[in-house]
């Protein structure tokens, strides 16, 4: 407790100093005030030490992993092509992956050349057939409807929420819902971020269940200007407004709004000051789309601008007193019921450009071993075609990127799609063999949580799986 209150008062002090600087210098404080501040906390032993960041890239809508990583061997490709028919990618279009220890040859979607290169250079691993599970599920149990399953498989919002929270909540549960990013942050905050002036969880994609902790939500960080309250024709009204946000309220919705805005004003002052010392990075990331550009340019910019801001926040981690950071980014549009063969390549090309740009930025800061990026999505998709698209599925293939990744490998398995394969349920859905809990726990262990009990708290279904660490991080 005493440590907590010390840390809290220290945070308040630092926040005040930062806010004062921000106030004194308008939009951006002078760079030297940053170094003063760095000096202010660097003297504290507990404030220094190793740095790590986790970056979640959520592909909203359910990315079709079956066309992301595809069997390329003659027999396995034939099985794939037979199942997917009109949705299948031509064998000679696939980007070959020389995966270590893979049972058969694999290829990557042709829209992702830079990602293929990251894989080949050992900086990326593929997670095969990951999905929402409470416990291992057999084909027999699933088909007989006796398996214990996460709530509302195949529903977008429910599966996004389960993926990010890993909680099964009863209808009468009134305890606060939390996400595993939020719980993870709370496990390492005291030991790593006691000098931080902001919450560990920073969202570049707005409100999300992943980063909700008992203490509240992530800070949503704008990808553009970090604004202050302004009334340029009546500047003295700003202080009045801010004073109004100091008046506690009875109505809970009003009070919630008041606190959220109060926090936004304070935290954005801290951010403005810190980001004044950040590199611009504009030229390192995909530019805004121009009229006539392919759709991929829009997707590359949408995700790239989030990752650019994440890279800037990583660059100013010392000014924020953060030894641990968790970022949430998202790209929408992956619900390809329609025109999948036209749309998914554009989405994946955008993803490819944004991820590669981010990885280059991280390397330029020489932080490649300390920043791990991982992808996530609502669910995989059906193997069958609906004519020109695919429907909601279950198991999915994901990426993990970074210097700490034991790369150029597939963890889990890309299933053989032969008729009668035990990986596919009777309704044609791919049954996941790796739980999101295992995926997350492997990331969390690398991030600094080693205690078995703590991991079980953070990942409530982990205890139901034998392998607690999938081994893709060292």
């Amino acid at each position, binding site marked *: 407790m005493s440590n907590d209150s010390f840390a809290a008062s220290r945070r308040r002090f630092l926040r005040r100093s930062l806010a004062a600087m921000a106030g004194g210098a308008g939009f951006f404080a002078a760079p030297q005030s940053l170094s003063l501040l760095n000096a202010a906390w660097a003297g504290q032993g507990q404030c220094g030490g190793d740095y790590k960041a986790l970056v979640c890239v959520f592909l*909203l809508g359910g990315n079709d992993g079956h066309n992301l990583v595809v069997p390329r061997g003659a027999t396995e490709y034939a099985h794939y092509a*037979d199942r997917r*028919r*009109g949705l299948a990618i031509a064998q000679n279009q696939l980007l070959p992956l020389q995966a270590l220890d893979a049972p058969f040859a694999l290829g990557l979607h042709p829209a992702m050349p830079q990602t293929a290169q990251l894989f080949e250079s050992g900086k990326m691993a593929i997670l095969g057939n990951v999905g929402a599970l409470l416990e291992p599920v057999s084909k027999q149990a699933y088909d007989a409807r006796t398996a214990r399953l996460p709530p*509302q*498989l*195949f*529903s*977008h*919002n429910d599966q996004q929420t389960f993926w990010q929270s890993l909680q099964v909540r*009863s*209808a*009468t549960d*009134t305890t*606060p*819902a939390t996400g595993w990013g939020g719980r993870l942050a709370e496990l390492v905050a005291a030991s790593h971020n006691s000098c931080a002036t902001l919450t560990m969880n920073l969202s570049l994609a*707005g*409100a999300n269940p992943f980063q909700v902790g008992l203490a*509240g*939500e992530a800070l949503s*960080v*704008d990808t553009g200007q970090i*604004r202050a*309250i302004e*009334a340029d*024709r*009546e500047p003295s*009204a700003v202080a*009045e*407004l801010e004073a*109004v946000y100091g*008046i*506690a*309220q009875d*109505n*809970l*919705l*009003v*009070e*919630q*709004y*008041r*606190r*959220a*805005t109060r926090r*936004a004003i304070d935290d*954005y002052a801290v951010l403005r000051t810190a980001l004044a010392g950040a590199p611009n990075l504009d030229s390192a990331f995909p530019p805004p789309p121009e009229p006539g550009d392919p759709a991929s340019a829009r997707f590359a910019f949408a995700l790239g601008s989030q990752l650019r801001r994440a890279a800037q926040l990583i660059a100013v981690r010392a000014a924020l007193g953060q030894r641990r950071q968790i970022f949430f980014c998202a790209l*929408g549009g992956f*619900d390809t*019921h*329609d025109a999948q063969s036209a749309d998914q390549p554009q989405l994946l090309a955008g993803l490819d450009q944004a991820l590669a740009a981010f990885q280059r930025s991280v390397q330029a800061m020489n932080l490649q071993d300390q920043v791990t990026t991982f992808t996530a999505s609502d669910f995989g998709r059906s193997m*069958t*075609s*609906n*004519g020109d*698209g695919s*429907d*909601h599925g279950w198991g999915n293939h994901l990426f993990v990127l970074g210097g700490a990744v034991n790369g150029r490998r597939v963890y889990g398995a890309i299933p053989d799609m032969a008729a009668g394969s035990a990986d596919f349920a009777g*309704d*044609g859905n791919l049954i996941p063999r790796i739980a999101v809990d295992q995926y997350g726990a492997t990331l969390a262990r690398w991030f600094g949580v080693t205690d078995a009990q703590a991991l079980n708290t953070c990942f409530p279904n982990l205890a139901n799986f034998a392998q607690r660490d999938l081994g893709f991080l060292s």
Partner: protein
Amino acid sequence: MTTLLRALIACVAIGLALPVAAADLIFRDGYEFPVRPSSRGEASRFLTQATFGPSDADIDALSASSYAAWIAAQVELPPSYFLPYMRSQAGITDPLQPIPFAEFLQAWFVRVLSAPDQLRQRVAFAFSEILVVSERGNGLGNDGLALGAYYDILLRHALGNYRDLLEDVTLSPAMGRYLSMYRNRKPDAANNIQADENYAREVMQLFSIGLVKLNRDGTPVLVNGQTVPTYDGDVVRNLARVFTGWACHCGAGQQCVPDPFPVEPFTCSTEHEMVPYEAYHDRDPKRLFDGVVLPAGSDARPELERALDALFQHPNVAPFVSRQLIQRLVTSNPSPAYVERVAAVFENDGRGVRGNLAATVSAILRDREAREGQRSSISFGKVREPLLRLTALWRAFDVVWDHDPLFPDDREIHESHNQSPLLSPSVFNFFSPGYSPGGVLAAPGLVAPEMQIVTANFAIRLANDVSGRVFWSYRGGPMDDPQFVGVRLVQLARWEQSIRPAAGSSQAPAGALDRLLDRSTELLLGGRISPALRSRIRARLDALPADEPLRRVQNAIYLIATSPEFAVQR
């Protein structure tokens, strides 16, 4: 945990335990909610729920009437449709000529700020957030024709019948394209093709019955403590086969082909509903939820009618739709009893009609919880949607404009407000009905859906937007200039006049500043302001020079309209 937070949670725990019993007690004592507003503030509260924001004139009119008479008059008003306006603005007469989406946004602002059929407009907007289509999806980009036609469907049925609304939505080209029922074909086993499940899934999950069985009061049915699913994957696959065989109506002058399923030579953008092509419709039997079976051999339209009937007759529809409409119009956390009273009217309007939306909306707005809930519950109300904050501010101060086309900043309203009509990021709307931001709301299990889009950056931007509207964009102000075409201007002159010192005086007329605050509080806060906020603003006005009455008016409005009290409608 702070003491304040603990106290608040304790209050809520008590509040949650009490409402039903307390309400019964009130009624046993002969209490009845008023048939007409008891004050201008009460009239303003009602109009905040039923319109895009009250003006003084609206408050006067309602005060001279009754709630029921006002609603009845609104229901009778002819709908102010969008497409005729959009076409006249774009100089288009050909019903198949594309219309830029910008015309839709302009139509929206013109209609919600000035159309007389405010109740219909407000309910249609609510439905645009329940039966969601979006310009950001599946080829609907810049398709003002398809999206304008869709919004006109919402307007046509907003105070009509939910069954009609559901059918016209289902067969609209906009929804057909958005959720890919358009050119959805029957399964083809030889080619491993299944029917597209997209519309089948979302019409159940989002547009009619939801995921779990509900009691009439909107709470989930529990069996051994567990919720009960309304359907499973097999039902989705069966219903997907119902919605097969529909393609675009081909009009005169279009490149009509006998079989549009392989290739449609034009974009399906028309007011005409989709039409069936039986060769692509699945004729096998379908097993739906709760034992409903659709027999083999049915044509596309009769089968679709039966499936929609089954959805419409499902016991979930009344609480599912009623609760969401309450959330969009009145309060984020309605009591189960409130939901049940409204659902009962949805089920039977008193004349045996199910799905009567005028009756349902009337029940929502006239319910004792809508009219009196703010007095007894500290969780009553809803965070204003960002767009509704802006319309409320504008309408309160008699917004005017010289040219309908929108000023460039307002054409990009989503940039500053994180919301723009028919621009949701997905079919799940801008925010979820179950979203809780945590904090003081988390522990009591309460939701604040709109907070999902009022993230940190937008909390600041929404406050800064008020500065632009009040200090820049008023009649006679710096933005009232012919070079700024389309700026919406508030009118502050009469307010300024009311506090201008009389000739020879250095003070505002006696009582004028208090009247200014009273009237502003009526318009923006439903007549209720915390003593702390009021005294701060009053002190601020006193500190500003009396001979700058406009500045005083602007400061008063600015501080109210940026306050957390304005951010929540109660």
